[in-house]
């Protein structure tokens, strides 16, 4: 741990970098993921086809390959040059995590019984009312636990950026461990702890939420 305390400012900067990538890409992925879910549920066939194709392709591609694509293929294919480092991490992770957000939301909406929407319509609620007063509040509780799991994976996935010239937590662990061979275990434990600070509250929330929902149903 000694090496970590000596380099606490480096560690702190790495922690904020990881957090910034996770939050920025997380918010963007949520927006894009909800849009994709809306496309997949829409009555308009081309939007459904587009969203289904996008989700299938991106979800089955490793995140490392998406980074590599952004780095080496995108400039030639789209003429798109993304600055290496944090911007590339945010863009790649947004595109990747959005597919999982989309799937979590979609399965949540599907879990609401058919009769619920039918009942809402038959008492004369409009489409927006049906969605916002009846379907979404019920979908919410089955969406939250899987969505939290998506975001736990998302936070950990920021580590892939370490392989693409981003000084985030895992890159710093690697650098410090190579520089301080006597303190390797302490460095990895410390950086692991830094990740747990972000992920443990989420996984505990998901678990308690799940048991609450289980009682409610």
């Amino acid at each position, binding site marked *: 741990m000694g090496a970590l305390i000596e380099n606490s400012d480096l560690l702190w900067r790495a922690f904020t970098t990881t957090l910034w990538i996770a939050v920025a890409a997380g918010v963007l992925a949520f927006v894009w993921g909800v849009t994709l879910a809306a496309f997949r549920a829409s009555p308009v066939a081309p939007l459904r086809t587009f969203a289904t194709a996008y989700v299938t392709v991106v979800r089955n591609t490793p995140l490392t390959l998406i980074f590599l694509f952004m780095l080496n293929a995108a400039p030639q294919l*789209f003429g798109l040059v993304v600055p290496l480092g944090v911007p590339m991490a945010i863009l790649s992770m947004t595109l990747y995590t959005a597919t999982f957000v989309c799937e979590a939301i979609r399965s949540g909406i599907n879990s609401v019984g058919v009769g619920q929407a039918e009942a809402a319509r038959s008492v004369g609620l409009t489409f927006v009312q049906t969605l916002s007063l009846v379907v979404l509040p019920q979908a919410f509780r089955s969406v939250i636990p899987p969505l939290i799991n998506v975001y736990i994976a998302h936070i950990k996935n920021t580590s892939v950026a370490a392989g693409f010239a981003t000084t985030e937590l895992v890159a710093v662990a690697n650098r410090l461990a190579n520089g301080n061979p006597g303190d390797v275990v302490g460095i990895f434990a410390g950086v692991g702890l830094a990740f747990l600070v972000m992920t443990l509250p989420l996984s505990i929330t998901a678990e308690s939420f799940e048991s609450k929902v289980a009682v409610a149903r």
Partner: protein
Amino acid sequence: MSEKQQVLYDVPGPKAIVRDKIYTVVFSVVILGGLAWFAIDAYQRGLFDDRWQVLWDGAKGFSGLEVWNRLLWDGLVLGTLKAVAIAVPIVAVLALVLTIARQAPSRWVKWPAYGFTHVFRGIPVLLIIYFGVIALNLKPLWAVVLGLVVYNTAVVAEILRAGIAALPRGQKEAGLSVGLSPLATMMRIQLPQAIRIMLPALISQIVVLLKDTSLGFIIGYVELLTVTKTLYNFFGNSYVVPLILAAAVIYITVNMAVSSLATWLEGRLRRARRQVTAGEQDDPLVAGTPAGQGPL
């Protein structure tokens, strides 16, 4: 797409049908237009030249067959799938042990197992892989396997726990009441059923594991991505796009094959369960069992 998604909408009337048709045309034009724009843009940057021949004729003295041999054999089979094949059986054994430990009556066994699942679900696989390389001096293959095993053991144990929790309580009570020990009840009554219900989720986890092997690229383990990069570094910059797209297609094909296995199994299990339920209802002894008590 499926009928379930249309639940959100009423059966369309004549106005809605017309409106949907207009939207369909408009968005088709927008999406196809976008694709065409990308294609023209790429064409103007000279992307559609002879570089794609690398995928069938090869380049620089390499035949197309040799290129695919590198990608599929050296990259996919001897790199990616090898790590998967080593990791999966180890994960299966350790996850079973961990699941049983989590249900143990003694807290000295239960709590460490609980801690392990929570801690290693929250730590990046890449951090564990680096730990293997730097602290344990492992070769790249074993570092990758270590990362995959530690993380996936925690996740699979969690999946199995959820499966056990989904079983009706009577299963465990029945096992105990016919005189089986708690361990035997777990091994012979609860786990086989939990594995059965959770089989689709377990197979989906293999896709996650397979995708995570690509982290080996970062530490220099020779797998599909490493081979791809070596190839385009050798052939030259203009071959980047065809080779990266080929690698992506390989990943997507393999993962979709695994996912479709999960879907197929899910359907099969559902059908099998329906038959079991139908059979049970003919039996006067269990005819009184309330419906919907079964797993899932």
